[in-house]
């Protein structure tokens, strides 16, 4: 049986990818960030999962304005780094896990999450920067990755509540996969940042730390934060943090924080990172007849 072992959240600032690709970590500007992630790299090597479900958003790379899926899951064999306008990042291709991905896609749809299924796409910095932060520069990524793309660009993005509930449905789907696999769920993006208009450069460290605090324990307060609060308090792009709630929802009733790192700035953005462990991974049963039936089949 597949099981969710841990959750990781990590900013996916493109400049971090540049720092990694061009070996800038020793620069005084980047060094604190390198040092902040070093313990996680060591920890991750000792707690390596088979698969990472990587929640991220595409930044006008695989999806343009023609098609805007709210939730999309990658079911393909592999994904290439996208050319985002300055050539693709020199990082390994991302290997998928089509069996688990299709299983999750089917389970989610029966659970009334109407997923878009993607078989072919390129993945941009939203997905590859967190891999670089956690794994460094290996010749091949040491895990398989299931990309889960969320629209947080065109309003309205999904609510925090819906994201949390999707996480819970992902947990049910993983639990019903028969193969013995260790799975991590990663939420990426954030923390506070605004990349547009005269208010650009907004950072709210106090709010970010509140958000980090409430990811652990059994509180569900974060799922009820409305979009307008993210916009006012964390800048127009802080809304990416709803993606962290998919990770949090997937970890179940209660979590424990293993480590965190917070740093301002990288480029325009507050870097946030947390590693969480489920204490009680229980999630509510599926509310749908089909979902409940598929759960029963798996028992």
């Amino acid at each position, binding site marked *: 049986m597949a099981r969710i072992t841990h959750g990781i959240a990590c900013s996916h600032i493109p400049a971090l990818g540049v720092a990694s690709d061009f070996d800038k970590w020793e620069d005084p500007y980047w060094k604190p960030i390198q040092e902040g992630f070093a313990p996680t790299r060591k920890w991750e090597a000792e707690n390596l999962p088979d698969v990472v479900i990587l929640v991220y958003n595409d930044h006008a790379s695989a999806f343009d304005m023609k098609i805007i899926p709210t939730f999309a899951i990658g079911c393909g064999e592999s994904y290439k780094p996208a050319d985002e306008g300055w050539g693709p990042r020199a990082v390994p291709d991302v290997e998928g896990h089509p069996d688990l991905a299709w299983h999750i896609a089917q389970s989610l749809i029966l659970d009334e999450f109407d997923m878009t299924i993607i078989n072919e796409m390129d993945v941009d910095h939203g997905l590859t920067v967190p891999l670089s932060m956690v794994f460094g520069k290996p010749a091949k990524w040491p895990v398989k990755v299931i990309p889960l793309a969320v629209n947080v660009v*065109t309003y309205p993005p999904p609510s925090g509540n819906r994201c949390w509930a999707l996480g819970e449905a992902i947990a049910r789907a993983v639990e019903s996969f028969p193969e013995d696999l260790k799975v991590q769920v990663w939420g990426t993006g954030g923390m506070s940042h*605004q990349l547009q208009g005269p*208010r650009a450069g907004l950072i*709210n460290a106090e709010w970010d730390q509140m958000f980090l605090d409430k990811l652990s324990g059994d509180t569900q307060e974060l799922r009820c934060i409305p979009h*307008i*609060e993210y916009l006012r308090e964390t800048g*127009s792009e802080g809304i990416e943090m709803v993606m962290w709630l998919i990770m949090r929802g997937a970890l179940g009733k209660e979590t424990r924080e293993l480590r965190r790192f917070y740093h301002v700035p990288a*480029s325009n953005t507050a870097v946030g990172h947390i590693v969480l462990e489920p204490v009680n991974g229980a999630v509510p049963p599926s509310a749908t007849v089909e979902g409940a039936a598929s759960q029963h089949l798996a028992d």
Partner: protein
Amino acid sequence: MTDKNPCENGPDQKIGGPIDIHAYLGEFDDIPGTRVYTAKRARQGYHLNQFAMSLMKAENRERWKADERAYLDLWPMTEDQKLAVLARDYNRLLDLGGNIYFLAKVFSTDGLSFLQAVSTMTGMSVEDYQAMMIAGGRSPEGVRSIKANRDAEGAAVTKESR
């Protein structure tokens, strides 16, 4: 079988309960110095953003660099949008329906980083903007709500006139 919605009686009724879409959208206009990328803007800026998206391809970047105006004329954009692109007036482009992640293709083609391009929207020099970021970024104090700022100003004026 359906679990109680955890946000139903939460600190805020705005999600998880019935949503008044007009009130939801209306609040976005109350944030100082910010253009939320709503459906209305997405519609207004469709061709502008798709033009920017086309610069993802190396051969299109070459055509664009060779003759910007001629390349723009291939797209059914408004004249205002075209002029704002030529002027690299990013605040104006946001007003005309541009989205920052799409506009990023334009400034990346110009060789600008996000930090450099974003600073042009703030009225600050790149150096001052970067210094502000290193010092911890722009504080949210006083830039959360236009209405709250107006109310505070009004209260101050009333107090003064007393």
